[in-house]
């Protein structure tokens, strides 16, 4: 058999397996059940679920993500600088913090912040339960972003610091004007990734019951399983999934584009 014929045959077999798998899967699925459970027409129309999902769910998800990202980023800068500090106790503190919060499920941090801390310390975080949940997300996001940022700072060539110091700039001024601006550029792609992770992590806030107007997308979708036009079906979850993708897909595409551009610039 000729080499090219053989290759065509192999490819044909591979395509054949794929088509067979799809057809088999399609035959196994109970389409009526899928339609009734996931695509209840009452939810997709104008009077359906979209209003609640978007004006409450998507809005809060975006607001919470932005708050957690901004404050988490500030915390991350502090932690990254501590981790690179010449003062050893600062380094230990930062390392301990980062290892602690990266090693815990975010869900547990949220629960402890919302319900454990008020009991143990007799103190409730500002902003009620939502505030507690957001603080938990900030603490966790800060730990992840700190590691990214530290790598970015260390990727700035040593000659940059030397040039700044040789001009008489203090160590603080050098960090602020020369090192950090360059480190930020290096970490934009991985930070965008962490932003996407954070969007999805806000879904964990469903475990703390909050007022209707404060609920984020996943919670709103869960509510719509038990009440509203598509009660009793999972239609609202499918709709929420679509909305998540609409938010995250452009961002993940942006990361891919940024990474490609950065590789070219090298």
């Amino acid at each position, binding site marked *: 058999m000729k080499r090219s014929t053989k290759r065509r045959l192999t490819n044909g077999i591979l395509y054949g397996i794929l088509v067979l798998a799809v057809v088999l899967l399609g035959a196994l699925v109970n389409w009526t059940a899928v339609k009734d459970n996931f695509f209840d027409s009452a939810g997709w129309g104008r009077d359906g679920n979209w209003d609640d999902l978007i004006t409450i769910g998507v809005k809060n998800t975006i607001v919470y993500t932005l708050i957690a990202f901004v404050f988490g980023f500030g915390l991350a800068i502090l932690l990254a600088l501590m981790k690179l500090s010449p003062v050893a106790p600062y380094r230990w503190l930062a390392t301990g913090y980062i290892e602690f919060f990266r090693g815990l499920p975010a869900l547990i941090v949220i629960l402890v912040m919302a319900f454990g801390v008020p009991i143990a310390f007799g103190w409730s975080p500002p902003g009620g339960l939502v505030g507690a949940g957001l603080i938990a997300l900030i603490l966790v996001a800060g730990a992840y972003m700190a590691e990214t940022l530290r790598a970015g700072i260390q990727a700035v060539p040593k000659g940059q610091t030397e*040039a700044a110091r040789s*001009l*008489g*700039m203090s160590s603080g001024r050098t960090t602020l*004007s020369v090192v950090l601006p*360059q480190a930020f550029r290096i970490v934009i792609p991985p930070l965008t990734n962490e932003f996407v992770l954070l969007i999805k992590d806000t879904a964990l806030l469903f475990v703390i019951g909050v007022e209707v107007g404060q609920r984020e997308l996943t919670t709103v979708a869960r509510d719509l399983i038990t009440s509203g036009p598509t009660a009793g079906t999972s239609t609202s979850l499918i709709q929420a999934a679509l909305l998540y993708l609409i938010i995250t897909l452009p961002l993940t595409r942006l990361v891919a584009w940024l990474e490609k551009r950065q590789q070219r610039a090298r």
Partner: protein
Amino acid sequence: MTVPTQNPTEKKSGRAIEVRELHKYFGELEVLKGIDFHVDHGQVVCVIGPSGSGKSTLLRCVNRLEDPTSGTIVVEGVDICDPEADLDDVRSRIGMVFQSFNLFPHMNVMRNLCIAQQRVRGRGKDEAIEVARTNLAKVGLAGKEDAYPAHLSGGQQQRVAIARALSMDPDMMLFDEPTSALDPELVGDVLAVMKDLASEGMTMMVVTHEMGFAREVGDKLVFMDDGVIVEEGDPVEVLADPQHERTRSFLSKVL
């Protein structure tokens, strides 16, 4: 911040750089093995030697980019190994030019030249820009104010780096192999700028492989090998008639 007050006449009578019994270890490795060395005001001192001889380390000790293990270094009357010395102030008066330029890539040329003037010297924006323009013209790059380093050739980047150092009105300039990373056709422009500086009376310490420059511009030539100064003297004499076997063998390889 205390700025050491100096009597100008006294300053001129002293030495610009005075190094005594300088030792430097990197871990177990001794790279400087007791260096005695000085640079007078207005003098151009060229330091040559094989790679690994410690010449760059010596230069980098002069503005404390490297910490000496032992010994004294006095720059413009300030003992820079004294823990009380204001290193930022000392460094701001010593211009340094690196082999790899080290311009700030996220700033345009004008910002590169102005940032330390404003943040360290405390100059106003207008004054800083004026000083920067003067120095850019001096290195032949007037009109490049808005360019970013990535868009300049190596030779242009190095001349911007020289202008950046000059904008601080330094008492002296340190050059760490300033032309080693350049394409051969770009070396001349940079050397010409350095020659102009020397003729204006700038105190200069130059680590270099450019023997032509050392012979033509240098007031003193220092040959280092294996962490010690093997030979020093008038560049023309040292290059024409080296007294030491190690100097002869090095020169025979590079000339």
